[in-house]
């Protein structure tokens, strides 16, 4: 590979990691439609899902143009196979109960907020514009989740127990937010975006006080490290894609 091709491939990979993380979390949250514990939360989770899918649409359209093979947002979302997805593993995990869904939204939105802030200065003008816009939306997602994390964490014995169990389950997956990768090295060299490892300190500073108020305790870090952003996924992504891509696989090229 020439240096120019390497840079191009890394740029595309960097975009897909962000786009796919929004897309897959949006798809997971949309599963709550009609199943929320109360109607207000049903509406909140699906509104957040819409924002995330909207972000993914903008990013995938941009990625498709950059790729230069004529693929649009729909082809990238509905016709890629599982190993071609670059989302963080945490977002493909099943929703679990409302508490676990909320806790994941909290951990992921706090990370997205740091990422969008840094990307608003990207040398990729389109990415910078999408990030500046998404940042405003993510602040509301984060507040929504943080309010619930406190209410349920510092709530009844049962709600506290469930939130602590959710944190014990999800926390190890957050190591992937910050693990180093060659794609990040290129993104830094070309000023496309930050190395994700650089976001860890501010993420911890945002997340820790909320968990404290919620009386929840993050488990100690272990060597556990998922690799969704490298295309190595858990068993859950295949099942999710089977449902998400059903229509396009059954009626190839179908539009409306």
């Amino acid at each position, binding site marked *: 590979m020439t240096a120019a091709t390497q840079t191009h491939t890394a740029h595309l990979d960097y975009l897909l990691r962000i786009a796919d993380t929004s897309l897959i979390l949006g798809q997971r949250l949309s599963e709550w439609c009609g199943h929320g514990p109360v109607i207000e939360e049903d509406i909140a989770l699906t509104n957040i899902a*819409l924002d995330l899918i909207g972000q993914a649409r903008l990013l995938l359209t941009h990625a498709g143009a950059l790729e230069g093979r004529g693929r649009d947002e729909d082809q990238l979302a509905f016709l890629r196979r599982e190993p071609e997805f670059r989302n963080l593993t945490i977002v493909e995990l099943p929703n679990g109960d409302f508490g676990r869904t909320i806790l994941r939204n909290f951990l992921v939105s706090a990370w997205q907020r740091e990422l969008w802030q840094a990307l608003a200065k990207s040398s990729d003008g389109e990415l910078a*514009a999408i990030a500046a816009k998404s940042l405003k939306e993510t602040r509301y997602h984060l507040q929504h989740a943080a309010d619930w994390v406190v209410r349920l964490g510092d709530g009844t014995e049962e709600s506290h127990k469930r939130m602590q169990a959710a944190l014990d389950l999800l926390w190890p997956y957050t190591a992937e937010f910050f693990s180093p990768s060659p794609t990040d090295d290129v993104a830094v060299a070309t000023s496309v975006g930050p190395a994700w490892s650089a976001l860890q300190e501010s993420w911890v500073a945002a997340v820790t006080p909320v968990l404290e108020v919620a009386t929840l305790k993050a488990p100690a870090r272990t060597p556990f490290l998922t690799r969704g952003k490298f295309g190595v996924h858990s068993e859950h992504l295949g099942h999710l894609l089977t449902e998400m891509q059903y229509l396009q696989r059954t009626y190839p090229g179908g539009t409306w």
Partner: protein
Amino acid sequence: MLTTEQAWQILGRVADPEIPAISVTELGIVRDVRAAPDGVDVVVTPTYSGCPATEAIERSIREALAAAGAGEVRVQQRLSPAWTTDWIDDAARERLRAYGIAPPGERSVRNEQPLSFVPRVACPRCESADTERLSQFGATACKALYRCRACREPFEYFKPL
């Protein structure tokens, strides 16, 4: 063919599909309008990335201008600078209130913290400040759901963005 000014006036009568009390120009999503020899170029910006009204708005803009004899209508989307509720003008804020939606408050750093500061929002119906937030997200992503403890009516609050 239309002049740029005529095109703006026509768009000033195109209602937002979700909030028909105000027009797409008052909402601040029409960023630029330019008459060309063969038609009109319009630049719009979406409110929220996932706003399902975006496509309906583009369609209404095309239809309204075409009906006025604008020729070819070209609608282009622009993301930067990102849309903000600061672009909603005072007259439109008053119309929102009359329609039953509390207009957006000021954007503040306090409202950007993870643990949210819940702003006091006056009831658009009875003006009481004794209100409570029921949900951060109302019928659309751009609004929160509130309830007035004085007149007991629910209402929506257009969130500052």
